[in-house]
């Protein structure tokens, strides 16, 4: 069987090295984020997004770019999207006064390309709405973190809460760092993905914590480092199997779900991998560092 690894894997010996590695990744991510920033999509920055399909399959992308350059619309990005003759166009300028803005572009583009252009999707977001969406997104992520913190604190102890939140923040920062590094676009569905990652990473961590708590109650004499190592081993196959099934589903979305879901599923795949790693190598060692012992748990139970 694939995951019936030796059940006595010594995670302990890797904590120091991997924690250092995590730290380096986080610092790198923060550095990239502050240097590169995030490639905010129309949802959060405002502007116009147009997905087009050209009838003529031999249209050159530079021809489309030139056509937009002549229209003098400010910053316009054109990129291939899915099929060979599908393109995604992002116009940063908001021309909200003119209701015919989009149809003017359509006519001009069809003329320049000498081919019928099908506007498959148009999204126009005003500056007020995009600012609100950005605020709502940040609020949602903050609230989710706070809610998780609170839930773990209620169900476990503050050490567990701290460890779990550290792991989640680790996941979110690294995921965003990767998005910043590749300049992948952040839109509404990426925020949804980030929130799901928060939930998933938590889910993974909680299962290990649950076992640690159970073992702490059972074996009050054994030190936490050993207990956490055993608990991680005991739950390891579950952790890996669940990550596998989730990844199978996500890879299916990534490969067959169409261009619109690509960013979302990529973020999720990344998040599931980082989240699984962090529950074992970030959250659990923090319990060791904060010197959790059976008294921490039992106190509360009386």
């Amino acid at each position: 069987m694939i995951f019936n690894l030796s059940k006595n894997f010594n995670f302990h010996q890797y904590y120091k090295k991997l924690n250092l590695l995590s730290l380096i990744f986080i610092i790198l991510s923060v550095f990239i984020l502050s240097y590169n920033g995030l490639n905010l999509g129309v949802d959060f920055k405002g502007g116009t997004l147009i997905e087009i399909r050209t009838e003529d399959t031999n249209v050159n992308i530079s021809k489309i770019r030139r056509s937009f350059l002549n229209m003098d619309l400010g910053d316009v990005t054109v990129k291939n999207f899915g099929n060979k003759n599908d393109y995604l166009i992002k116009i940063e300028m908001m021309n909200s006064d003119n209701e015919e803005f989009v149809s003017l572009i359509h006519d001009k583009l069809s003329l320049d390309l000498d081919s019928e252009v099908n506007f498959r999707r148009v999204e126009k977001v005003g500056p007020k709405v995009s600012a609100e969406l950005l605020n709502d997104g940040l609020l949602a992520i903050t609230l989710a973190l706070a809610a998780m913190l609170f839930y773990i604190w209620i169900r476990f102890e503050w050490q567990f809460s701290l460890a779990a939140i550290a792991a989640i923040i680790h996941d979110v920062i690294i995921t965003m760092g990767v998005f910043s590094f590749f300049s992948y676009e952040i839109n509404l569905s990426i925020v949804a993905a980030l929130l799901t990652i928060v939930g998933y990473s938590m889910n993974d961590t909680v299962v290990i914590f649950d076992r640690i708590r159970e073992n702490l109650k059972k074996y009050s004499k054994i030190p936490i480092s050993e207990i956490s190592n055993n608990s991680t081993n005991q739950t390891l196959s579950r952790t890996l199997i669940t990550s596998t099934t989730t990844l199978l589903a996500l890879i299916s979305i990534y490969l067959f779900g169409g261009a619109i879901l690509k960013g979302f599923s990529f973020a999720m795949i990344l998040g599931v991998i980082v989240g699984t790693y962090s529950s074992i190598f970030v959250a659990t060692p923090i319990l060791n560092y904060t010197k959790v012992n059976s008294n921490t748990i039992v106190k509360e139970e009386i």
Partner: protein
Amino acid sequence: MLYFSKLKLVTLYSIIVIFCLFTLLNFINNDNNFLLSKKVNLGLDLQGGSYLLLEVDSSPVIKEKIQNKLLLLRKILKENKIKYKKLKINKNYINFIIQEKDIDNFSSSFNKKDYAFNPFYTQYNSNEMEYSIDGNLVKINYTKFGLIEIKKTTLEQSLEIVRRRIDETGTKEPTIVRRGNDRILIELPGLNDPNRIKKLLGKTANLTFRLVSNNEDSFGAEMLSYENDTGTLSVNKRVILRGDSLDNATPSFDNQNNSAIVNFSLDRIGAKKFAKATTENIGRRLAIVLDNKIISAPVIRDAILGGSGQISGNFTFQSATDLALLLRSGALPAPLTIIEERTVGPDLGEDSIKAGSLSLLIGFLLVIIYMIFKYRVLGLIANIALITNLMILIGILTILEATLTLPGIAGIILTVGMAVDANVLIFERIKEEMKTEKTNIHAFDMGYKKAQSAVLDANITTLISSLILFFLGSGPVKGFAVTLGIGIITTLFTVYFLARHLSSFYVMKNKERIIII
């Protein structure tokens, strides 16, 4: 944990059957019955259509209202013998100077309930207007609640007009609802090109009939430009007739000039006013002004007594139709701005459905195969639970008539991936217990018991994030939260009732044999 009473089992299986039947409703057509016509709605991103978010700018309404207050205020001050100076409107408030001895008098008369000037809202426990005095200078402005009330009425009126305009265009099944204090959300399924609707909503459609100025009028005139930018004309500020006097308006074709026109008829009072004005001003030009642009300014040749007339301009039949529509549905109280617009063409929607279903199918198959590979018979049980889970999930979405979006489909696929987690947790625990427990039954029992807290914790955390997404997310993302959230509940149900019953059945039948997991 492995024992089920008969009653429980009957309830359990009937619930499953009922929800599965609801799932099937999506595949049959029965629109007559209230219960049987339920279906999962497809979101705009899947069936194609337009989503528009409009903002109502109520500041002109506030300005106009405060202008109307001025007259009432003068009357009140006169009635109470209060002398005032420099009465004028500044932005959103009224300013004037009174003598010190009149201050008390003013204060007591200001809040009298019988004056129409300052109505009292019992629901807010507040007046519409408030005042402040700085030395001799009085400032009167709307209270917070006065403003809320104005915004509310403006929004409600706008909503009504927007609804009428869209209904008139014959768009199928539009959704038009208010959002917050000053926004209107419109969903137009199946609409590929929202241009016409956007144009119709972009006009306030304030129609006025006014005489073209001949420099002798005392009312003052203003320069207005023609709608097609062919020049300007000086037009009287005094309005003879407004659009709200119109009874009906229809597009028509004038065979003499070979051009499109709009026929209109006036209500009784409007007809009288129009008759009087046209009788008195034969030979002068009458400007027909829409939203401060002149449509046309024909010469009045005869008195128009019948209460009907026609508007000509440089119309195409389409623009005449649209003008008639605007006039019929009435003027908006305030201008609307489109602050968000999302349109998906029907072919992209179709592609998304195809891609979504394909990835669902493949993801589902991969998970099912993996589970059988890992757990054999128990894997099969988990798979039965998973399929039932999906059926119940779609059944619930059908009963709620929820809207399925592309991210919603992603939520279902993710549910598939994560739903088996509960079973994995339990099976792994059983595996451990089998090492220490003597009998299979005991091991299964303990496995279910001990895994429970982890299963609950794991699912509640995901539920928390889906709840937050549901309340803060917008549009398609909300659809993701809905399917993910309901998916968690159906997962717990199928794992703890269906899969548990099936596995207890299996382990009871094979008490002695070694069960491989």
